[in-house]
């Protein structure tokens, strides 16, 4: 299996998938801003945002479990930040508020990312005149994530096929060497890509 068999995020048939990327980006930004700017005590406001997001979620026809998995994947970051709040006076309440707020923001971005193809988002950023370097970097990152994923998988498989011991420690050692090797290969590839770009007139 190669990365090209992975489904592209943001491909789908619902009305939310088909609505213009610019509009979705604007709504997502507005929601995130609202959540960030609302004071902790304004529970009603946060509740309204939550209702809007739930409506959008239903509208997107994405599987709830799928979204939950995505959220859980990013949860350690949220917990890391929110966890620090415990150590303040009155920490429990702040912790709860930060958790709610951060998760609402997270859900917004996860919804946006899974209903909008990445290329369309980048195009919107381009139209908004986001600095050229940033957009190019994003585009290249998206393009080569797939290549790197393939390369990692190939290396992992090649290692696994000649790994006969079951020692945990040995597995960690191989993993670290795969990561190192991947880094070297990625930087060599970056040089070749740069050559290919220059060859076609990049300045």
């Amino acid at each position, binding site marked *: 299996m190669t990365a*090209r068999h992975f489904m592209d995020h943001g491909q789908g048939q619902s009305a939310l998938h088909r609505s213009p990327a610019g509009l979705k980006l604007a709504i997502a930004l507005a929601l995130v801003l609202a959540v960030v700017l609302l004071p902790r005590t304004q529970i009603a406001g946060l509740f309204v945002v939550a209702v809007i997001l739930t409506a959008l979620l239903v509208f997107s026809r994405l599987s709830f479990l799928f979204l939950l998995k995505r959220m859980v994947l990013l949860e350690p970051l949220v917990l890391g930040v929110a966890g620090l709040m415990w150590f303040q006076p009155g920490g429990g309440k702040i912790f709860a508020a930060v958790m709610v707020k951060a998760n609402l923001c997270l859900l917004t971005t996860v919804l946006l990312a899974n209903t909008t193809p990445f290329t369309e988002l980048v195009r919107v950023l381009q139209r908004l005149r986001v600095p050229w370097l940033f957009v190019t970097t994003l585009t290249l990152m998206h393009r080569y994530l797939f*290549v790197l994923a393939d390369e990692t998988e190939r290396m992992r498989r090649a290692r696994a096929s000649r790994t006969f011991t079951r020692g945990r420690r040995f597995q960690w050692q191989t993993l670290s060497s795969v990561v190192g090797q991947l880094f070297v290969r990625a930087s060599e*590839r970056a040089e*070749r890509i740069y*050559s290919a770009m220059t*060859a*076609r007139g990049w*300045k």
Partner: protein
Amino acid sequence: MNAIEITNLKYRYHDGTEALRGISFRVSPGECIALLGPNGSGKSTLLLHLNGLLPEKIIGDGAVKISGEALAPENLAKIRRQVGLVFQDPDDQLFCPTVAEDVAFGPQQLGLGEAEIAARVKLALAQVGLPGFEQRFTHHLSHGEKRRACLAGVLACEPAMLVLDEPTSDLDPRGRREFKALLREIPATKLIATHDLEMAVELCPRSIILDHGQIIADGRTVELLADEPLMLAHGLERPHILHHLHPH
């Protein structure tokens, strides 16, 4: 005037490896030449020189001349416009998300207008047999399609010379056959580094054999490849296709 003129070209990598040790040859406009030789003989290094990607600091000593003009920092852009380089790994070359954007990259760098760019993209994709592939994602293409898309990206710049690095490696027999037919149709001067000796016989009347960074032989492909001792000495072999050719 020679399309390509190389005079006593030398190159040494940072680690001290001597990749090219005094190479000289000339290519007339419209010629199609196979560059043969074992792995690590310096083929790819030589091809990078034709586009000014090597050496890192161009000195302009006149070792590489394209259309009579010595490669120098001032005329790099002009020379890159004339020489289209197709890299070995298509994933290195297809760096844009969609096929259309990738093919349009070169023309955009040339500063063409949008209508002209769109026309060139359409034409180039038709030329390589990928019409209607504009909106396809480059990472979703098959290997053969990636190769074609790479070629389209270079053809869209309308180069006078095509330089290809192992264009048929990793292709299935049909992909190889189709890619060869495609190359035959392109009128540009072609220099093809390859291990595909059958392709050399079919497409290239002339071959240059490179080993240890030196030119070992330069002559008619059918004659060079029929010379079994020469072939074996340089990691090559006499291709079967020669048995089916009638001597002229």
